[in-house]
């Protein structure tokens, strides 16, 4: 993202903790504490060393002055500690006061050092070596400039002390035990000591500051690297999040809106738009916008052939307009300027079959977009394109489903109504409402009626199958259906036909009052009717058909057994194929659509049940339907499954 300090694009949310700030300042603050602790040792050290040197070694020091210096060091350290306590090392706004404290501390230490040296023999004192500590310390704590300044001050202090003592302005405190001869008055000695001191201390300062500077530069790089890494992680996270958001819906408008919204918010730009290529491929019209005012958006569609920028984008390039006021490629520069847009970046949305449209981000500053921005927009555009294409495909499927549904409805009406009218006319004739008929006439009309009825059944079955295939079933209309009632009703309905064929038509219901499934009553009726109707149809006179309804664990079991013609083994695998009829069934009953079992299977399966058949040729067939019972807690429990299985009885082969 853009690093310009004037940026209104807020610091990215994922730059967390101390990574956003140089740790040097934090370290300075901590070093001041450390320096202060060292000073207790230094002050105490001066006092102890003075006592040891004088009492044990008998060096003949100026004890009083040195004790005073040691106490003075401890005393001013107390003040510094107080001062330091007010400075919080919490990384915010500490630099100025901490730096001032560091300067004052080192300055005062320098003076204490000068007096220590003065009282311990001036230019002859070995304590002058202690200046190297402070040079190193200031190089660590302060800037190079400050370090050289203090190093100069140290040289000046030492030179001044030496000169004042040499000139007799300050008294010289000679340490006889240490140095038998007085050297402070030897100009060459003084000069050479000062020269070597100054050169050594300056070279030390140079080396220390140089090392520190390199260290700090490296720290800075680390910080920068950390920030870049954080930003990259943030972008990847944002990309992932927006990809999730965009892909989690198949509604085209929702996909587009999520895409513009997340792109604009991650890139922290003024606005984002998506324009989709119209079917004519000559216009790009707004499909989703984020962050821009209606007044700007009303400018209409972009004409591809009049817009070289758009042409370039549609060819797969990312095109940046860093400053709209100097770019002639925009179609509506005045409107954009009025909206406060200064720069744009446009990326292509490309699907498998070609360009879909463009995505554009708008910034209110010129030179707003970096190459990272381009990469990011390209990534958003490419995953966005996939989501858009998916949503478009889904929409197309939905349209197709709707068309199918309308077609089935139309066919239902257009096919059924003339057949229905023929039926009514024939019924009117057959019923004698249009005058009495001769026996032959009546017979012919009854035949015509029978054929017409078959046609009706065929159309109804076909529509049922087609509706099932097209997913047009009203599975939403699920209600409690009592299987006991349904089975009893169907038994009643076929009673007359069974009596006519002298079939022993049994009904075996369980003890309980109801067996309830969540389903559509009409569909369950249809499924069971098909089985019962087949059983009665294909059972010869004097045979038996029995309906048995039982409860088993969480389900109802309906068994339709007959002593009919049975199903040949080689016909069993085809039993649930559309329009299939077993050869012996065709022989027995000429008319039949071969759709009844397909419909039953479809219905039972959709309500989460299963259908099994076992049969022995010439002996009879048994169809077993298992339907899950409606549970008290979840009335809409019946979910469609593929639980259908066919077992072939005697031969033992089973399929699913």
């Amino acid at each position, binding site marked *: 993202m853009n690093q310009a300090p004037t940026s209104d694009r807020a610091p990215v949310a994922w730059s967390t903790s101390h990574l956003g700030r140089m740790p040097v300042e934090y370290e300075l603050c901590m070093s001041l504490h450390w320096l202060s602790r060292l000073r207790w040792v230094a002050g105490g050290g001066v006092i102890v060393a003075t006592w040891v040197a004088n009492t044990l070694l008998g060096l003949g020091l100026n004890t009083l002055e040195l004790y005073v210096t040691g106490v003075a060091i401890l005393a001013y350290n107390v003040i510094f500690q107080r001062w330091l306590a007010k400075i919080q090392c919490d990384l915010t706004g500490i630099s100025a006061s901490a730096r001032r404290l560091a300067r004052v501390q080192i300055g005062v230490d320098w003076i204490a050092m000068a007096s220590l040296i003065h009282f311990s023999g001036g230019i002859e004192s070995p304590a002058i070596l202690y200046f190297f500590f402070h040079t190193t310390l200031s190089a660590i704590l302060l800037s190079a400039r400050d370090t050289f300044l203090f190093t100069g001050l140290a040289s000046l202090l030492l030179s001044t002390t030496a000169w004042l003592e040499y000139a007799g302005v300050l008294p010289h405190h000679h340490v006889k035990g240490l140095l038998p001869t007085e050297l402070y008055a030897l100009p060459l000695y003084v000069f050479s000591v000062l020269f070597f001191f100054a050169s050594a201390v300056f070279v030390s300062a140079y080396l220390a500051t140089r090392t520190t500077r390199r260290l700090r530069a490296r720290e800075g790089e680390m910080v920068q690297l950390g920030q870049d890494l954080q930003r990259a992680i943030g972008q990847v996270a944002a990309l992932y999040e927006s990809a999730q958001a965009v892909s989690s819906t198949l509604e085209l408008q929702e996909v587009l809106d999520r895409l513009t919204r997340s792109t604009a918010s991650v890139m922290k730009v003024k606005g984002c738009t998506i324009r989709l290529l119209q079917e004519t491929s000559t216009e790009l019209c707004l499909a989703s916008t984020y962050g821009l005012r209606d007044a700007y958006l009303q400018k209409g569609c972009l004409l591809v052939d009049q817009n070289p920028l758009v042409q370039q984008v549609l060819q797969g390039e990312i095109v940046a307009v860093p400053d709209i006021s100097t770019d002639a490629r925009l179609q509506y520069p005045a409107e954009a300027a009025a909206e406060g847009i200064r720069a744009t970046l446009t990326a292509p949305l490309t699907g498998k079959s070609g360009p879909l449209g463009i995505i554009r981000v708008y910034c209110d500053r010129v030179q707003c977009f970096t190459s990272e921005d381009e990469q990011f927009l390209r990534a958003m555009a490419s995953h966005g394109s996939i989501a858009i294409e998916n949503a478009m495909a889904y929409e197309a499927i939905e349209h197709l489903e709707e068309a199918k549904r309308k077609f089935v409805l139309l066919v239902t009406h257009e096919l*059924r*109504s003339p057949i229905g*009218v023929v039926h009514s006319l024939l*019924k009117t004739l057959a019923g004698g409402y249009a005058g009495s008929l001769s026996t032959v006439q009546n017979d012919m009309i009854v035949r015509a009626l029978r054929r017409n009825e078959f046609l009706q059944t065929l159309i109804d079955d076909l529509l049922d199958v087609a509706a099932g295939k097209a997913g047009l079933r*009203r599975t939403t209309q699920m209600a409690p259906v009592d299987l006991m009632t349904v089975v009893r009703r169907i038994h009643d309905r076929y009673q007359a036909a069974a009596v006519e064929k002298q079939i022993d038509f049994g009904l075996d219901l369980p003890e309980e009052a109801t067996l309830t499934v969540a389903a559509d009553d009409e569909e369950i009726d249809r499924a069971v009717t098909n089985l019962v109707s087949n059983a009665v149809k294909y059972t010869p006179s004097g045979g038996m058909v029995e309906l048995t309804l039982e409860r088993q664990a969480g389900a109802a079991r309906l068994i339709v057994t007959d002593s009919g013609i049975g199903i040949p083994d080689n016909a069993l695998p085809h039993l649930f194929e559309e329009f299939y009829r077993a050869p012996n069934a065709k022989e027995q009953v000429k008319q039949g659509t071969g759709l009844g079992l397909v419909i039953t299977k479809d219905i039972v399966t959709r309500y989460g049940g299963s259908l099994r058949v076992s049969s022995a040729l010439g002996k009879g067939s048994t169809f077993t339907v298992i339907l899950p019972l409606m549970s008290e807690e979840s009335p809409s429990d019946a979910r469609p499954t593929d639980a259908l299985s066919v077992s072939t009885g005697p031969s033992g082969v089973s399929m699913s």
Partner: protein
Amino acid sequence: MEPKKILIVDDDPDLVLATRLVLESAGYHVDEAPNGEAGLARMREVLPDLVLMDVMMALPLDGYYTTQQIADDPTLSKIPIVMVSSIAASQYAETFPTNQLLSIREFVSKPIDPEQLLGKIKRYLR
């Protein structure tokens, strides 16, 4: 006793012919109208004892909207209506929410069985 008047509102002349024959043979006086608009006018004119209404007719007024208008008219709203439809009892009935109307007394699904129709009508004209 004067014969009961039944109005058939249906745009299919063949179906009207068959229904008319059945109803007249049972002694009813039959009027007919080819669409909803004409049906409404005819209803106000003859004040029938019962209306047989086709659900799906060509616009301007199909059976559904015609029935709505009848329900809104206090002089007509008490006349029983038997809806006739090729889809009323089928699984596509939900597309035409005819059963939400109060004045619809009964659905008859095409094709119409003469005995069944006469039985239903007799119940309302008792």
